[in-house]
Each structure stands twice: as C-alpha cells, then as structure tokens.
C-alpha cells in the first residue's frame, strides 16, 4: 500500500504580533514545530502500514528549514520524504498551495491513500486537503474519527458529522483528513532520530514540476490577496478593574447580580 502524509511546519507559538505603528509583523524568536494535527495523520499512516504493509511518504511545502518536519516524520517511522520549496511559491493562498502540493504529489507517483491533519495551527483554514483532492480528482472525506476496515480496494471509516456518525466506504485512491484523537501519536524513536539526522531531504522546486508556468504558483497563482494586516480592535466599552482580590470579587459578584445571572 502506498501511503502519503501531507505535513506542515508552523510557528511554535501564537505570540506573533503586528507593530501598530509600522504595520510590520513581529515574529522574532518564534521557534517552529510540526503542525500538531499532522501528528495524528502520521500515526494513522503508521497504523495502516502496520496492518497492510507498504511504504509511507511525507510531503511538505515551505522554506528550506521546513525540512525539519520531514526529519521528525522519519523519527516517527515514515519511510520517505520530500520538501517542495521555491521562492516562486511565496505568497501562495489555499488555491496556489493546494495546486503546488498536488503537482509535487504527481511527481512522487501513485498513492492509495493521502492523509492530512484536520487543519494547521497557523492558518486554521482546514481547506488545503479538500482542494488537493480536487486537483488530483480523487474522492475525499474529512473529519475521519476512526478506521473501521481497510481492504485492497477501499477503506471504511467513521466520520464525525457533529450530530451523527457516518460509516463511509471510500474507494482508493482517496484523500482523508483525520480528526485529532483518531490515534494517540507515538513519540519519535531515538534511534530513528539519529538515523534521520544526516539523511538528505529531497527538495522539489518549480523546475522539477510538470507544470512550470510561474503564473500558477505563489502570489501570482493566488486569487485571494491580503490587502492589509492590522491588530485586532480593542473593545471600546471595556472597564479595567484593579484592586485586592476581595475588592475584585465583590465587584464581580455585584456585576453578575446586576446582569441577573444570579
């Protein structure tokens, strides 16, 4: 079975702010890590391989240092990994990102199952997975909370639709985005981590892709444009309360009574 996992490097905290005067993003000293939701996708891939055999590849898109998440994937037990990276991919929105990744996937060969996490913690859009499936013209289901059965031709999964659970069969090749908690992600193995240290990560650039037309990538291939960024509005009707804990508690109690919640 050929399994692919799409992963992303994200900032390690959300302490990214915009300077209200200059409008410049302040990201100094922000470390990077693997998008936590991707760990569940990797674990799902490892469980499928355990049951069905086969190989797991990981693909990521980002700056050169994003290769770090491929190494993390190796340390968890993923077999192969590539980084799609090119300055010409800069400024990509969901459409351009999903297109670029789908082009990278086409280069790697055919997969039975492509797995994605439910969303990233930096963009929080949960859209890239479904758009990749469209570019590859394969069926896709989201919110997969459990794997019921895997066969050679298809997979049966549980999908959480909030008010009910759907048991759904999807033919291969397909793309699944998995929910948090589908499986508990394993910790990276020390031995595999050591092995991964010196492993070369293959980098795919625009020149390697089937479609080399610059207009389809990065900012140029993005229908949405960020017009401006700004700090969130400060609530104009706020009251700041300072004082001793007793004073604050009394004021709070009175306010809750005044609002008629007690």
């Amino acid at each position, binding site marked *: 079975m050929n399994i692919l996992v799409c992963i992303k490097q994200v900032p390690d905290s959300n302490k990214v702010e915009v300077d209200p005067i200059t409008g410049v993003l302040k990201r100094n000293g922000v470390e990077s890590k693997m998008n936590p939701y991707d760990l569940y996708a990797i674990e799902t891939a490892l469980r499928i391989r355990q049951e069905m055999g086969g190989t797991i590849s990981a693909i990521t898109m980002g*700056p050169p240092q994003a290769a770090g998440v491929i190494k993390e994937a190796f340390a968890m037990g993923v077999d192969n990994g590539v980084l799609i990276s090119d300055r010409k991919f800069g*400024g990509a929105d969901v459409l351009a990102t999903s297109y670029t990744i789908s082009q990278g996937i086409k280069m790697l060969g055919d997969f039975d199952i492509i797995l994605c996490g439910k969303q990233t913690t930096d963009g929080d859009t949960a859209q890239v997975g479904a758009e990749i*499936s469209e570019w590859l013209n394969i069926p896709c289901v989201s919110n997969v909370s459990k794997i019921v059965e895997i066969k050679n031709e298809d997979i049966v999964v549980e999908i959480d639709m909030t008010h009910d659970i759907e048991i759904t069969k999807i033919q291969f090749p397909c793309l699944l985005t998995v929910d948090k908690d589908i499986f508990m992600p394993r910790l990276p193995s020390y031995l595999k981590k050591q092995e991964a240290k010196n492993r070369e990560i293959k980098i795919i650039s625009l020149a390697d892709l089937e479609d080399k037309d610059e207009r389809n990538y990065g*900012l140029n291939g993005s229908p949405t444009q960020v017009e401006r960024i700004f700090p969130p509005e400060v*609530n104009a009707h706020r009251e700041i309360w300072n004082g001793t804990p007793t004073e604050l508690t009394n004021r709070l109690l009175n306010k809750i009574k005044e609002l008629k919640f007690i």
Partner: protein
Amino acid sequence: MAKLVINQGEVGNIQDLISLCSFGAMEEKNGELIINAACKMCKICVKKGPKGAVEYIEDAKVTIDKSLWKGIVVYVDHIDGVIHPVTYELIGKAKELALKINHPVYAIMIGSNITKQSHELLHYDVDKVFVYDHEKLERFKMEPYTAAFEDFVNNVKPTAILMGATPVGRQLAPRLAARVKTGLTADCTILDINENTDLVQIRPAFGGNIMAQILTPNHRPQMATVRYKVMDAPKKNQVEKGEIINCDISSDKLNSKVDVIDIIAKEKEQFIEASEVLVVAGRGIKKEEDLQMVQELADLLGGQLACTRPISEAGWLEAKRQVGLSGRTVRPKLIITCGVSGSVQFAAGMNNSDHIIAINKDENAPIFKTAHYCLVGDLYEIVPNLINQIKVSKGALENEL
C-alpha cells in the same frame, strides 16, 4: 505576473533588510542580499526598506469583467433536510451586502426530497432559491454536491458565495473553490463589500494576534465561509416571498466513489454552543484537578465549562469543549474567562458574546482587548472567593423564601 527584484546598489546595510523581514526570507549570500523560499510576498521590504532596494514589479494583468457576475448566494446547509441555522445568519448578511451593490440574494439547496424545506427559505427575503433535488444527492458527498454546485455557478454566475463553516460547508467549499479555480477565505469574522463588488473578507491570520483584510480582486465567484453564531440571524417573515427554481442535472454527473454505509445517531449532547453561560479555563489553570473549581463556578451560574486549545491539547478536557478557531464558536449571554491569555484564534470564537468578563494576572494579556470587564488579578484568589460569595448570597436568598 508579479515579482520582487533586488537592486543590490541601493540595499545599504544588508542586515537592516534581513531583520526587517518578518519571515526570515532574506539572507546574505556572497555579500549580496537574496530572497529565499520563506518569502510570503508581503512586500514589507518594498514598503519599509531603503528606497529602491527591493522593487515590486508587476506586469499588466488581464482583468475580468465583474459586471457579468451578479447575485450573492448562500449555500443552504442541511443534513437530511434539517436546515442549519447558520444558513439564516448568512442570508441576513447576504441581504445587507446585496443592498449595497444592488444585487439579488439567492439560496442554493442540494439534496433529495427537499421541496418542502426549500419553501422555508422564502420566509427570509431571498429573491430566488435554486433547488437541486435528486435521489443521488440524498446524503452529503463531496463529488456529487460539487457537481451540482458547479452547474449552478456556471449557469447563474453569482459574484459571491457564502457558506457556513460546518462539517459539510468545510468540505464542499474548498472542493468547489478548486473546481471553479477561485479564492476561498475560511472563517471570516467580518464581511463587507466594495462598490466594485469586491467582497471584503476579514479573518485572523498568520497564526498570531493579527487580523487580515482579504480581497479576491480578479476572480469570480468570490467564496467565504463563516462560522455559526458570528453573524446575526434575520427575523422570519410570515409570508413567502421569492421564487423556487428547480434545476436539472444529468444523473451521470452525480456519481461518487464514496458510499455512506450507515448513519449512527449520536446521543444528545450538551454542546457548549447552546449554553447561555460559559466559564472558560485557560492556561492559567495550573493543575488538572483545579478544573473542578472552574466547573463549580459554571454550575453555580447554571452554565457550562469550556476551555482553550492548550487545555484540550493537554487532554484535560474534551475537544468539544474548546472555544476558538480550532474549536467551537460560541455566543453566550455571559462568558467568564479564567486564566485565558486570549489569542486572536480564541477571541474569534467568542467575541460576539453579550457580556465578557476576563480574569487574568497579566494586565497586558490580549484577552483584555476583547473583554468588557477586565479583572487584573489571580484567578486562584478570585474564583474560590466568588464561589463562596455566590453560595452565601444564594443561601441568604433561600432563607428569605
């Protein structure tokens, strides 16, 4: 085509430009400044760098004729004909936007045996309801629903599509956006529209305390998803107004490689969205057992316990209790946050609540920008104290009766 070009002669101190870039996309190579693949094309180097050092060069674009695209359409989100209330909230918003540009408001409903339900929409002031009713569309599946929606887009050419960020909307919207090759902005918190019909989409961005204003300037339709309880629902009219249009689509376009084998109803859960009072535990809660204190306060106020991402990631509470962009959007009458710092992602999930009370030790915590009443103090001193006082005052009340 757009690109950034560096004029090495104008760069001056290379380190200044390197530190100006928020994404670490500038580096020095052989004494020259280069841009690497971390570039997000934010153009800050062009705007704030030494004049002429980095230039943004853009060829003339082929522009589309926006007047060919008319109408704001709302996707009728439903499962088995039960319409999700986010649909009405979006119709209210669509109405407001359409008025500004003098466009009609449409609804599109895709399903099986939905004639009766489609009439429900005529009570909400839509001009036309387009209905795709086919047995193959009985349960939501991405491929056939996308095919029906694509058919609608090609025939009607709406300028904008609004969809609820529900389990269905979050799957259908991206698949459709890639199909018709247009932009999609997820989880918008504010929507407006320019005179030239460009939809102004505002949402939190860059994984930080930042909002982004996003346009889709040269593509139609424009697509946005919005979460439940972000916009206001309009009132229901007594009489039906508007027109139902039944749309045909050939059956072979509605095939799918996905089979729904079974549907299992979940036990009726108490969702935090349904609660009028929420007490939220944040990272300021030091130990798992301290959640009991927050739970007790919620119980005393007749409300529910909710939490932030770190608490749910630590496994202390279930993901369904999490408020924010990766959790639920809530709009209770009263929300009390305890030890919540208040990232934009969190705030976007609760800032429409009627009364927001925040308790945090750090007077600079971002939550104080969102809250109405900002208590600068230690939750471990205030919350137990408050619990006692509520008990006392409730006791006093009971004694009086």
